[in-house]
């Protein structure tokens, strides 16, 4: 029983160490938190759909080290992100910046919503007209009267 407990403890302690492994975390928690926040915004260019926090690719490890160095050197978040985009372009940012080249990307959903809204609006407006059956011709009227037993 004791052995089992020790074994379990060891398993969990190893796990704890394996989460977000980085040899050189910053000693001041506030600085480390700021560095982590910046890293979360940066795309790992090797694995592409992960941020550099989540990636173990060599380049991501290097970029993490650079972010920490720059945080330690007192650079602002903006300066660090600028450092990255000047080398790797806007593409390194997981959240693309709002500018003319990305106008369609950002406004596209709103545009589609407006188009969809317009079509729905038109459809609703038009419906009553369309729902009305064409008027009966005299022959049909006669038949209807007959069916309803409305003859005098």
């Amino acid at each position, binding site marked *: 029983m004791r052995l089992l407990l020790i074994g379990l403890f060891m398993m969990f302690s190893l796990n704890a160490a394996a989460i977000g492994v980085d040899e050189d975390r910053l000693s001041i928690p506030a600085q480390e938190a700021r560095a982590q926040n910046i890293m979360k915004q940066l795309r790992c*260019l*090797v694995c*592409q759909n992960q941020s550099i926090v989540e990636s173990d690719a*060599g*380049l991501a490890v*290097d*970029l993490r080290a*650079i972010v920490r160095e720059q945080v330690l050197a007192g650079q602002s978040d903006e300066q660090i992100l600028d450092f990255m*985009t*000047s*080398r*790797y*372009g806007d*593409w390194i940012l997981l959240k693309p910046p709002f500018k003319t080249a990305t106008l369609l990307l950002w406004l596209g959903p709103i545009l589609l919503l407006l188009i969809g809204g317009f079509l729905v609006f038109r459809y609703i407006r038009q419906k009553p007209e369309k729902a009305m059956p064409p008027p009966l011709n005299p022959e049909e009227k006669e038949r209807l009267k007959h069916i309803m037993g409305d003859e005098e």
Partner: protein
Amino acid sequence: MSVKRFIPLFVFAGIFVAFMIGLTLNPREVPSALINKAPPEFSLPPLEGAGIGLSNNDLMDKENIIIVNFFASWCGPCRVEHPALEQLGKIPGVKLYGIAYKDRPKNSLSFLKSLGNPYSKIGADLKGRAAINWGVTGTPETFILKDGIIRYQHIGPIHDIQMTDNILPTLRQLAKENGS
């Protein structure tokens, strides 16, 4: 009324074309931020001995078109593109420089010894920091410079088809600019 009926078809055609283009793009090709810009400041040690192996000064060549190739002995695709580099190194008016990316100099040297050394100068980027300043995401990666300005970036190994379709035409075009 009859045009309206074809609207879904037009929408479908539009989406179809967009996907045809979008899905055949190579996601590895990260759009370069350094095209038409000067390369970053760097100064790298040589593979052997002390001093400077490669630095900005080497790129300010007015006579030659410069090709800078990031490579590593541990990188498989670098072996694939090695014949292409040998070919590029022999073109008159072109200088080929190498930067060994995160590689032990000893290993880089034996790599070049077994395959041949196409580079006229080599710098050792031991920690990969120079590569990050160049916006390199991995080896191999190749830059073409003229008058100290980066004009073209090739990501991944240079296959024969890219040599004839991209690299050589770019070199020819840049050489033409020289004349004017």
